[in-house]
């Protein structure tokens, strides 16, 4: 048993870490965040060239077929360096959904791997909470084609997607687990309206409306997509856990550095016992997060309820620990922590964003208890 990355995973981590340090140093990060499209596109292609975008694509679909531990090595380093691109949505979640071996799916997987396309999953609706089975969007069959109607209120990382993977109802009533199918919709499909939003953490989300949209491509079998969706989202969460771990450890490191160097009242503020205890609690939070996050990732996506429970538990605890660490990092930096110029507040905001991506703390605690 070993919680540490093996040699290859460590190399993967190091290479992403280098990438992040070179391209997301404080000044460059602000440029990238400002929405410099060419720059973002350049970064994305570099990531494709390094093979990261195909890490989770199965070998039989032309990918690298990496394990969740491989994925963690990448996303942890991304979290450490606050790489704010839609890697998890596109390269972890989407491949987990596009698993039916169809030509349509394989075309998209190819483009994901090569960096030519970004994909986001559109599951949440105004009245769904974070429950994936609450689907009101309908896909009715007309003249041999599906017609989609409805709205998705929040599409995580959907702001720059070229395709959307959409859950829609082909049968059953609004809150039934059966009758849900998965559809692939290009961003420029007639009948699709996309509204795009920038989030506080640099990620870009979307709302969608389907107005009698024709020609959506079904992925997988009709009516039984929910388990695939849930396991896919679990993998997305698993990847996010490592991202959160990377972010909280880094911001703790930065905070410790600050405690050792910042002086007030003629001595380093790290000599104050209250601040010492606070950084200790931050460190413990990091340890908890790393332990439960790694543990839950082992069997993520397995078809059994204990795997689902573990990922829900880890999501709760890692989110809580992340929020705690982010808040305390800001607090211990004082006014500087509140400024946008230090990386500290950026970590806090990303940890905040991660804590709600693919379901809030309360949602997952409830799932755990079910």
């Amino acid at each position: 048993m070993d919680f540490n990355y093996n040699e290859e995973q460590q190399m993967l981590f190091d290479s992403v870490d280098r990438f992040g340090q070179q391209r997301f140093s404080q000044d460059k990060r602000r440029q990238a965040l400002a929405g410099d499209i060419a720059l973002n596109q350049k970064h994305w292609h570099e990531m494709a060239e390094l093979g990261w975008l195909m890490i989770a694509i199965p070998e039989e679909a032309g990918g690298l077929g990496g394990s969740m531990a491989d994925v963690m090595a990448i996303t942890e380093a991304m979290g450490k360096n606050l790489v704010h691109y839609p890697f998890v949505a596109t390269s972890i979640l989407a491949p987990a959904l596009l698993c039916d071996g169809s030509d349509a799916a394989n075309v998209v997987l190819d483009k994901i791997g090569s960096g030519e396309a970004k994909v986001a999953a559109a599951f949440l609706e105004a009245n769904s909470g974070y429950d994936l089975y609450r689907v009101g969007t309908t896909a009715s069959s007309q003249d041999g084609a599906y017609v989609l109607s409805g709205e998705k209120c929040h599409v995580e990382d959907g702001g720059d997607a070229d395709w959307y993977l959409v859950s829609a109802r082909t049968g059953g009533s609004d809150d039934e687990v059966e009758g849900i199918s998965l559809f692939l919709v290009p961003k420029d499909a007639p009948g699709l309206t996309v509204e795009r939003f920038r989030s506080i953490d640099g990620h870009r989300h979307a709302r969608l409306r389907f107005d009698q949209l024709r020609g959506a491509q079904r992925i997988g079998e009709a009516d039984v997509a929910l388990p695939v969706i849930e396991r896919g989202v679990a993998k997305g969460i698993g990847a996010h856990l490592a991202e959160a771990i990377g972010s909280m450890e880094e911001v703790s490191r930065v905070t410790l550095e600050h405690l050792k160097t910042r002086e007030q009242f003629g001595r380093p503020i790290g000599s104050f016992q209250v601040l010492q205890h606070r950084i200790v609690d931050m460190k413990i939070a990091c340890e908890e997060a790393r332990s439960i996050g790694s543990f839950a990732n082992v069997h993520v996506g397995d078809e059994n309820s204990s795997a689902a429970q573990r990922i829900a538990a880890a999501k709760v605890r890692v989110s809580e620990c992340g929020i705690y660490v982010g808040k305390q990092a800001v607090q211990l930096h004082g006014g500087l922590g509140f400024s946008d110029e230090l990386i500290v507040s950026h970590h806090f905001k990303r940890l905040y964003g991660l804590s709600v991506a693919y379901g809030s703390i309360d949602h997952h605690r409830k799932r755990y208890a079910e």
Partner: protein
Amino acid sequence: MELNFEAADIAFRDEVRDFFAGSIPEDWRTRVRAGLRLNPEELIHYQKMLAERGWGAPTWPVEYGGTGWSPVQQYIFWSEAARADAPAQFHQGLELIGPIIFTYGTPEQKDKYLPRIISADDWWCQGYSEPGAGSDLAALKTTAIKDGDHYVLNGQKMWTSYAHVASHVFVLARSSQEEKRQRGISLLLLDMESPGITVRKIPTMDEKYHTNDMFLDNVRVPVENLIGEEGRGWEYGKVLLDRERMVTASVAIFLKQTISAIRSAAARRVIGNVPLIEQPGFRGKLAQFEIEVMALQTMVLRLMADAANGAESGSRGSMVKLRWSQLTQEGTALWVEALGPEAMHFEAMEGEAAGLPSLPADMPYAMQGALYARVTSIYGGSSEIQHDIIARRAFGL
């Protein structure tokens, strides 16, 4: 023990309630509930509205244009303002420099500055903190060297909130080097138009423009702008300690606004067929928040009642500040949670697409409020410093 309002207080309450009825524009109300400051023009407008009614300075004595209200009347006034989603008045002129001027200022200073604070013709900001002097203010380095009938100021101030809109700034600067670091610091009033003042925005994590670096480069300040005696500026701040309870008390009362905001968001958001506000988990959290707000507000009420009876507030002002910052952080976070995933939609990237229902008016203010709330446990003496102060003052530790 007598905890009922007297008849006169109730009449006063009705008068205030009438005044506020319908007077606050809807788009102010949403942002106020988020705990966000309105724009300067709006706050100026609000202040002028109050000044016109004679209520511009609720905590000042009548002789300086204040209302002369008792603490209980102040409590009622703020409660009614909160109830009407009116904003808190901008406090740096009214609560920070105003009381120092009417306590230690010359007759000329009083005549010149006090009326213009109440009428919002002047906007004051505070030049205290410096890059190396945050919690440890006595470490400040800005110098004020006397040169004939002027002081010449040099140095860098930081976290000078609203310097970019202010007409005046009050500055602590070192007018001589003495052994005891607090000695030799003077308090000076500056016109922001003075040559040599440069203001540079500090971007903050809530993406709103609050605060600045302020560079003082040979800024000449007439000696008549010195408050009290040279070298004793540090002491003049003390008058604020006793008044601190007024500032914190008033903002604490405004937490009721956050409660309405959460309630309204949680009533709108339906999961399955059940509004969030009816779901036991969320209900419990909201109830807990409301209960803690009630506890804080009764602390404030007791503080005001004791003040009216002439009792010392002790460290209770610091305690209220501490608890208020915790609760404003929790409340805004709960509001974000009530709004669900869309609370993350901070800014539309390509405007509203035609035909899509627009976002509720309280996005992105909830998120901005939640981010802004993080600084409330840092400014005005961080929570850690407040604890230190209480331990020393209340317990002699």
